[in-house]
């Protein structure tokens, strides 16, 4: 028995490792069916974010915030993002897809959270979006920055690239260039960052759904976030 015991242990660990990997990589468990199953669980066991924990309102961010969707939408998604962050770039089309699918049931707010310690162009990108925002073109710049993240993140000097984007979306480039270094833009980024810190944000993307943080592993792929939103909508009906 002692001769075969190590082989049994090795096989057990192999089985456990492969089983864990299979369980974690298999297609998304939170399908709409699973949502229905979750909804039938007793409140507090797992359920939707609306059933978990208390809401920390945090301190206010930049006002007016950059938001899409009706103010009274049953689901409010507040994203703290960094335009240079690859997962934020992956999350961007998912969030857009959710907005299209759920329409006026969802309101989306974007908050600046540039991780300047690890992303050299994060602050420049945040400033570019805010400067465009002063001319009413925040979302246009926001979309371009994410859609073309791979084009600019490895550039040495991103200023001419972002000026090109500004021109492309139709903002007054001279005013945009002045606004880039304005106190107003800096203050907006600072206020959003301060709000993020008050809510315990440590990384990006961090998303709060009706004030409760959505775990990072529930944001991607789209099926997971869809299930979380559906859960929240069901909870809101009760």
């Amino acid at each position, binding site marked *: 028995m002692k001769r075969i015991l190590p082989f049994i242990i090795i096989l057990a*660990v192999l089985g456990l490792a492969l089983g864990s*990997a299979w369980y974690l990589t298999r297609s998304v468990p939170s399908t709409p069916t699973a949502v229905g199953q979750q909804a039938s669980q007793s409140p507090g066991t797992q359920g939707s974010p609306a059933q978990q924990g208390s809401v920390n309102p945090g301190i206010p961010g930049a006002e007016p915030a950059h938001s899409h969707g009706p103010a009274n939408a049953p689901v409010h998604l507040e994203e703290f993002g960094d335009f240079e962050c690859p997962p934020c770039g992956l999350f961007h089309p998912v969030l857009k897809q959710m907005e299209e699918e759920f329409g006026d049931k969802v309101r989306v707010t974007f908050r600046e959270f540039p991780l300047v310690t*690890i992303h050299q162009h994060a602050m420049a990108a945040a400033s570019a979006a805010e400067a465009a925002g002063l001319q009413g073109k925040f979302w246009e710049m926001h979309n371009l920055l994410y859609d073309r993240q791979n084009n600019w993140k490895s550039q040495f000097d991103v200023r001419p690239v972002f000026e090109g984007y500004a021109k492309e979306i139709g903002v007054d480039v001279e005013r945009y260039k002045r606004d880039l270094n304005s106190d107003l833009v800096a203050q907006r980024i600072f206020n959003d960052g301060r709000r993020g810190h008050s809510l315990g944000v440590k990384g990006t993307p961090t998303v709060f759904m009706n004030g409760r943080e959505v775990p990072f592993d529930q944001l991607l792929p789209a099926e997971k976030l869809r299930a979380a939103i559906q859960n929240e909508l069901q909870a809101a009906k009760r």
Partner: protein
Amino acid sequence: MRKIYVSAALLSLLGLADALYLTVEHLTGATVQCTILSGCSEVLSSRYAVVAGFPLAGLGAAAYFTVFSLATLAAFGYRAAGTLLTPLLSAMFIFSLWLIYLQAFVIRQFCQYCLFSAAITSVLLLLIVIGRFVLKPASV
């Protein structure tokens, strides 16, 4: 010496879990969240994270599993398994140094999970070297 092999087996399980986590992240298409202190998403989405179409983290998981198997066999008295541990861990250690170099000077971002793996490999090698060459081989 048996205690050293048992410790090495347990330690390699930590490495296996770490590498498995990174492999799953790679295979599911999700990348690790950007955090204030971590550049994991940059490291894991770099071209160095894939070797011949295979996730590097997967190779790491296979290596840690091999270390676990050899250490377990050695703990149960299979001497040949213990002998194989030194070259395997040496190769893993050198590869870890190469990955740290890539993070420091090429990608210019550090991933905490990759550093954790390098630390485990270093401790494993140290354990085995101490066990095999500093402690009396006669006690093996």
